[in-house]
């Protein structure tokens, strides 16, 4: 898709979102290593184009589900850094009142049906949301993010098949970052392209360069159009890479990946690449993009201040929200 067709606002929005994700993930990792965040974190640094390209093809009223590595997907769908960071700090002002944490961020008002810590678990309920929209007669679509490892679950296959036979408006988007924890793709599946699994379910499967935000955007947009027209689901495989370890604290090189491999992928860092595209196409100047970078840095600082200043939830909060109180 030509850059000119997308429009400057949208392009700069994508650039900004990618920057937000990068800064958020790096800041969170830093805070975690300093012992300031409880629990554990999975960083999506390197996968920004995959998250942002996909969510940029959604409208605010469309929904998405995400995974344990969900910060990027969720920021891409519209979550703000302050309430994200407050959740990581387990504060009352976080998206889940400090009760969900890194792996469970959700905001239904933003179409974020939640991240899940159970690999593969988001796909079936994304299918259900798509069923709901179809039955209600809206043209909303649902996009479900998952990983290469997640494509080996029964839930993945059952979800694809059901969505296929019912022609549901859902897009299955695989961040194929080549690893499931420490297991390389070649060890956990025989296929090279997760997209071929679409064939088994009679739906289109597309592989796209997940380091190229515009390619992911264009591919997802086509799938969204298809879904909106009632033509059913699409499986998109976005080939990407996580630059950090499986979890923050995992060195990410050594036992299962070489430093050289990581360095090779880092050369394809989606953010500087997109920056170059924008400048070369005359969409934005260096100065404009620098300004965005500065705005993002400021937003991050404010988010930390917000999170730090926010109160912890009351203890009684532990017993709230189990059931709807009538």
């Amino acid at each position, binding site marked *: 898709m030509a850059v000119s067709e997308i429009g400057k606002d949208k392009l700069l929005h994508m650039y900004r979102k990618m920057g937000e994700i990068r800064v958020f993930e790096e800041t969170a990792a830093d805070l975690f290593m300093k012992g300031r965040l409880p629990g*554990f974190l999975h960083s999506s640094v390197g996968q920004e184009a995959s998250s942002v390209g996909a969510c940029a093809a959604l409208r605010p009223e469309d929904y998405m589900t995400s995974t344990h590595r969900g910060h990027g997907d969720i920021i891409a769908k519209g979550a703000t850094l302050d309430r994200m960071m407050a959740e990581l700090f387990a504060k009352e002002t976080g998206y889940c009142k*400090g009760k969900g944490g890194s*792996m469970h961020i959700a905001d239904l008002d933003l179409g974020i049906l939640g991240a899940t810590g159970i690999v593969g678990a988001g796909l079936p309920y994304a299918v259900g949301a798509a069923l709901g929209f179809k039955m209600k007669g809206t043209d909303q679509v649902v996009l479900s993010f998952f990983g290469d490892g997640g494509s080996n679950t029964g839930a993945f296959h059952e979800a694809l098949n059901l969505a296929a036979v019912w022609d549901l408006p859902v897009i299955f988007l695989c961040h194929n970052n080549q690893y*499931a924890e420490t*297991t390389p793709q070649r060890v*956990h599946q025989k296929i090279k392209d997760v997209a071929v699994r679409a064939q088994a379910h009679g739906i289109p499967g597309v592989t796209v360069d997940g380091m190229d935000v515009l390619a992911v955007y264009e591919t997802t947009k086509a799938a969204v159009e298809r879904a909106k027209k009632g033509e059913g689901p699409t499986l998109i495989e976005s080939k990407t890479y996580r630059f950090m370890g499986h979890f923050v604290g995992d060195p990410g090189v050594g036992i299962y990946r070489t430093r050289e491999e990581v360095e090779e992928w880092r050369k394809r860092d989606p953010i500087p690449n997109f920056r170059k595209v924008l400048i070369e196409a005359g969409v934005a100047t260096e100065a404009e993009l620098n300004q965005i970078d500065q705005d993002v840095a400021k937003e991050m600082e404010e988010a930390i201040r917000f999170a730090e200043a926010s109160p912890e939830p009351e*203890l009684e909060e532990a*017993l709230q929200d189990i059931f709807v109180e009538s």
Partner: protein
Amino acid sequence: MREITYREAVREALREEMRRDPSVFLLGEDIAEFGGSYKVTQGLLDEFGPERVRNTPISEAAIVGAALGAALVGMRPVAEIMYVDFMAIAMDQIVNQMAKIRYMFGGKAKAPAVIRTQGGTGRSSAAQHAQSLEAWFVHVPGLKVVQPSTPYDAKGLMKASIRDDNPVIFLEHKLLYAEKGLVPEEEYVIPLGKADIKRPGKDVTVVATSRMVLKALNAAKDLEQEGIDVEIIDPRTLTPLDEDTILESVKKTGKLVVVHEAVRRCGIGAEIAATVAEKAFDYLDAPVKRVTALDTPMPFNPKLEAFVTPDEDKIKRAIRELVG
């Protein structure tokens, strides 16, 4: 006697049984080069190779199914499910297949598989990575359920579990892995179904499981200063449950507190309390008390997590209420 960690104790049991019996093998996610999420199987790949230490895809139903099928044809698999929470995905293979196959087939088959996993709170892992789900498995006839609290027990019970001809659910605790304890170098096996009195006492019986045994021991030490003499029983296996040891203790003390990290409703505490009510009612001087997690999913916030989870203070309070 030397001291080793709970993690090392489980690993030693696996290693010794693998050396002893070539039909024993391991399968699970990231258990080979990486040694498992909690490093229990670290180093076993080097000794036994990839045929016997098998990395699997993220496919819990297939992991348990593969263990079950291999067991049915004469192997002795030990499958690792990374978190007990993920057992939910394998529940059909566990509940409808593994537990019942022998019975449904009229006693024709046996399934000597061990499914190891770990649960428990204390690391802000939130609602999907910190549950204690032992009661689910206890509720299913056909499964043995083991929940060791010390390195010594973990090793001896793992060896017995592997040698047992029945399916065994072996529940470790994420915060026990680094705990040290005395473990002899000589071979020993702890039979399934035998409780252990972790501390003899005369005033009150505390039945505690898994990490709560450690908490109960700490509480008992404090209460000793107050002149309360607590007897602590660790059932170690929940199925079969050593009712005799529990009943004998209650007959002596007349008071029972059950402590577990799982939520209260339909937890193992309910089973133990009901058993005591049925079989030793006349000996009870006071109502049975349960110290358990509150009936809520586990919150992420560390203070809320602590609020929900049983600890020494909550155990002491319950005991004082009974004895005071």
